[in-house]
């Protein structure tokens, strides 16, 4: 009877090896003092089983606590009587087994988390060709067949000669910089002098006004006859052309003359005095 009860609350009942072990455990448990408090054969069998777990003789997961609960309730219903002290002890033991089960579970889960997760999932069928399949699988499961080569990382020492060369170079650098600075100073001085001269060129403004007067005087002498622009420039150099042209533009804006061109853009530009135009 005891064997049956134990078998019921144990998992892996079909495992022959385990059954042999269990027989041994039962014999051990019979000699144990801890089970003596249970007078009932049934209680004693359960207590013996739980005790084996707590003595680390049995894996806590070998106990089927659900089956145990069912059996225990059935027994209470059948007998109607219950030894509360023994029942209390057995429930406490069952709780301890449950604790062991959950501790065991946590340890297993933690170990699983620590284990590196496989990087590759499954090897696709199209790689089943022998050598290639073997290669791919071995690389993925066991690691790469290549390794980094370790080479010297060093940079070399600097020599005294290089220090001296550096000194020479930096002295050249400094000399060059001084030269550049001197050149910059000279340039600044030159620019300052130029600025001064430019201020003196205010006379230029007066030149322009004089030029306008002269151009107008020339045109007035023509009594309203038109003349080509070139004829107003006696020397035809660039500067004179600019002077004459800007004078004419000024006079045209003042409506003192008329300017026109035959055949744009290369035709001759004509000028005439507006006051003799009669318009």
């Amino acid at each position, binding site marked *: 009877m005891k064997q049956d009860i134990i078998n019921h609350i144990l998992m892996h009942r079909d495992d022959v090896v385990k059954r042999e072990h269990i027989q041994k455990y039962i014999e051990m448990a019979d000699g144990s003092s801890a089970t003596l408090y249970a007078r009932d054969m049934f209680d004693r069998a359960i207590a013996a089983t739980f005790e084996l777990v707590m003595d680390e003789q049995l894996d806590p997961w070998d106990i089927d606590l659900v089956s145990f609960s069912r059996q225990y309730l059935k027994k209470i219903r059948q007998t109607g009587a219950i030894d509360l002290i023994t029942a209390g002890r057995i429930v406490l033991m069952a709780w301890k087994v449950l604790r062991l089960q959950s501790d065991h579970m946590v340890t297993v889960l933690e170990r699983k988390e620590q284990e590196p997760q496989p*990087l590759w999932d499954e090897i696709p069928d199209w790689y089943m060709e022998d050598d290639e399949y073997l*290669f791919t699988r071995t690389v993925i499961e066991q690691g*790469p067949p290549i390794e980094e080569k*370790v080479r010297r990382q060093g940079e070399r020492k600097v020599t005294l000669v290089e220090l001296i060369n550096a000194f020479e170079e930096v002295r050249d650098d400094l000399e060059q910089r001084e030269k550049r600075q001197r050149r910059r100073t000279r340039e600044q001085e030159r620019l300052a002098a130029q600025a001064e001269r430019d201020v003196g060129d205010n006379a230029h403004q007066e030149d322009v006004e004089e030029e306008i007067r002269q151009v107008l005087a020339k045109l007035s002498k023509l009594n309203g006859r038109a003349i080509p622009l070139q004829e107003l420039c006696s020397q035809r150099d660039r500067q004179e052309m600019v002077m004459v042209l800007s004078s004419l533009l000024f006079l045209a804006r003042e409506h003192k003359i008329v300017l026109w061109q035959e055949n744009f853009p290369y035709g001759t530009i004509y000028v005439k005095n507006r006051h003799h135009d009669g318009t």
Partner: protein
Amino acid sequence: MTAPEERIVEAALFSAGRPLAIEEIVEAVPLTRRKVERALAALMEDYAQRGGADQTAMEVARAGDKYVMQLRSAYADYGKKLSGMEVPLHLLKTLSLIAYYQPVTQADMKDMVGGKIYDHVKELGELGFLRVRDHGRTKMLEATTYFYEYFGFDTTDRDKIKEYLKKRIKGQR
């Protein structure tokens, strides 16, 4: 043998700390190409012998089409920390697969290793190990010369590299 030419080439390899083409050595030292070649062969032989007797931690080896002084594999781990290198394992795996299957499309590689291939290809490209070309809607992946040099392959012939990788894997199993 106490050939000063061997020492001169040894000095060049030691100070460069990277694979050198024969031309680079010829430019840097006062030796003819012929002498440099002879010195390289002698150096490789000498280092191999001394390495065999565990009398040196280094070796002189071919790396792609170049020559390099580096730690023997057995001692690589002791130098990694100090030389500040380490290509992460997951990249090494992907890279060795690409080296085996090359030229291979990113799409095919995705079938093999999954969606993380995009990150891997990007990182491997940045490290200089992969040449990535557009190929229709996907990309074509190939190992660079730098890959052969960095990982110390003594050839750039793809078939030979495939053979080598296959052999290494068989040793691993």
